[in-house]
């Protein structure tokens, strides 16, 4: 059916007039900004398509590391924050409660930049070194084309992560899909493993309570009077946390932790001290009938991978080393703006090497060594300027990597630059002391 091109009537006249009608200058900058905000908000909601679904759809190379990473990060966000060994908890009643703990449950809500929505987890702990977390994610309903109108009810998905640190083993279960991912934690930093085997929970905790704290006063939470303390960690992570305990019993009520580098925060609530657990809760063997895959976390990263990864960061940042060696959302945006395109393989390689850089740093520092990055603004190919250096605990020399990616052994650590020009196109982010000062 074709219209008659010569037919012109009131409908054509109307549309002619509509098309030719005066349109003022627009939209305003404010309207564009509001639109951008609405889009970001929609993205966050849209991302609720569910983390698990995202993981499910990922390439195998990154699927399970990501699942495991989220699990570990979440645990870190929960458990570690409360027991960070260098955090000073001079709150006797709370301390007493914690000192008595051999088992514990709590609810942790993790909000991180990399998570599209807050992740709420039920967490179980049992000394020594057993952890279980149960994550329930609410998926998005399907929507009609071109609209945001839901056409189906949201569905909830559950994931369970269990860690047995002493045995260097973990497992992630997705019951709905009957899938299990066994995690082998290879070459775990020695002090971590030793600590796990020594079962020195209380000693570690006592150390943690010996530090400084700031009194936050009193407030009421859900009708309960609580006392608060802000404890500043002196650990490498430099995190601070607010601990609120029941003013009468000392029972922990709320712990709020801000993650470093503006990554997000963790809120812990619903503490139960010394509940009785069935050991099966911490069984890291895959249940029968599950499809099992295995994923390793290897902390033993060779220097060449470190150098290659650092070089890739500079390459993708227009030939200038960025402020931090992390694929931050800001960096991703900059890559897009600079229209730097990566193939799937390149982006995967970049991702893998970025994680190896971090693993290298963790392994070095946790073994009592030093690691520093000060490459911000240095041009790739600059053979005179150190961008990164590290030293194992008992090593006599520092290993220094320069802007042209060659490495040398030197006796003293380079001086971090007082100031360097910001990377081009704003490829860095806020200065991070943790990444520029050797420890």
């Amino acid at each position, binding site marked *: 059916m074709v219209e008659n091109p010569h037919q012109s009537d009131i409908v054509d006249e109307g549309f002619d007039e*509509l098309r030719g009608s005066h349109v003022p200058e*627009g*939209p305003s900058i404010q309207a564009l900004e509001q639109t951008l905000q609405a889009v970001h908000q929609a993205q966050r909601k849209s991302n609720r398509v569910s983390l698990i679904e995202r993981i499910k759809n990922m390439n195998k190379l990154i699927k399970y590391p990501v699942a495991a990473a989220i699990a570990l990060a979440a645990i*870190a966000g929960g458990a570690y924050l409360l027991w960070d060994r260098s955090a000073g908890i001079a709150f006797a009643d709370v301390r007493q409660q914690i000192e008595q703990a051999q088992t514990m449950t709590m609810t942790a809500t993790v909000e991180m930049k990399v998570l599209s929505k807050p992740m709420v987890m039920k967490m179980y702990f049992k000394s020594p070194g057993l952890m279980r977390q149960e994550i329930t994610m609410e998926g998005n309903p399907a929507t009609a084309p071109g609209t945001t109108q839901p056409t189906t009810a949201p569905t909830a998905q559950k994931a369970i992560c269990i860690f047995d640190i002493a045995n260097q083993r973990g497992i992630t279960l997705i019951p709905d899909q009957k899938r299990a991912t066994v995690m082998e934690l290879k070459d775990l930093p020695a002090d971590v493993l030793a600590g796990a085997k020594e079962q*020195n929970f209380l000693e570690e905790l006592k150390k943690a309570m010996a530090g400084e704290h700031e009194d936050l006063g009193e407030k009421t939470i859900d009708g309960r009077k609580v006392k608060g303390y802000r404890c500043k960690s002196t650990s490498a*992570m430099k995190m601070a946390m607010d601990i609120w305990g029941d003013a009468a019993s000392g029972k922990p009520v709320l712990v709020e932790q801000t993650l470093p580098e503006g990554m997000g925060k963790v809120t812990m609530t619903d503490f139960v001290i010394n509940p009785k657990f069935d050991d099966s809760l911490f069984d890291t063997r895959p249940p029968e009938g599950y499809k099992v895959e295995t994923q390793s*976390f290897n902390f033993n990263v060779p220097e060449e991978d470190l150098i290659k990864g650092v070089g890739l960061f500079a390459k993708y940042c227009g030939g200038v080393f960025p402020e931090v060696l992390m694929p931050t959302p800001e960096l991703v*945006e900059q890559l897009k703006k600079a229209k730097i395109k990566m193939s799937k393989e390149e982006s995967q390689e970049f991702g893998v090497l970025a994680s190896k850089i971090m693993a290298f*740093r963790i392994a070095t520092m946790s073994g009592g060594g030093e690691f520093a990055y000060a490459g911000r603004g240095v041009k790739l190919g600059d053979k005179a300027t150190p961008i990164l250096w590290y030293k194992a605990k008992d090593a006599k020399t520092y290993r220094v990597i320069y802007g042209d990616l060659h490495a040398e052994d030197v006796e003293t650590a380079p001086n971090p630059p007082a100031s360097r020009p910001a990377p081009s196109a704003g490829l860095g982010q806020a200065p991070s002391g943790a990444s520029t000062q050797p420890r």
Partner: protein
Amino acid sequence: MPAFGVPRKAILCCKAIVRCDYICEYAGMTAWDTIIHEHGPAVWRTAYRLLGNRGDADECMQEVFVAAVVVSRREEVRNWPALLQMLSVLRGIDCLRRRARGVLRDDDGSRLSQAVSRDVPPDVAAQNGELTARLRWALARLSSRDAEVVCLRYMSEMTYEEISQELQISVRHVGVILSRAREKLRELLKERGADHG
């Protein structure tokens, strides 16, 4: 507490890995600020033409890009201008229909006059306001699919094939809808003209 030592160290690794996920997954994703600044003006102009005032055009533009987020999560977008043009018309029609149902605060008359007084020189408004206002009123009274197709054809000047692709209907069906919509519009425009005449 030894067990917690692991996460403390592992969190750094986790951050990296999770961020790697971010890069891997989003490497090909849209830079929304760029898209909005590139295509926002065209979207806004389409919305303004359909709706006749800044406030509704602003709102419509937001809805268009939010809808685009949803679409882009579901499928790869190969032609942003075409998608946004279609969404502009769809959301604009939706807005017109809401007005007609009284969900929005006015009909074409009062709001149009406000908009015209703010944005358009009076003589221009006098020349082109009347039939346009009637057309908006009439479009709001078509079925949403008919209004969408007729606007994509006559306002956005898309071909039958383009409309067919965007709306995922057959070319023949596009023709059927257009024929039906024109007839209905003709009646409504005459009816409105008689009322105001």
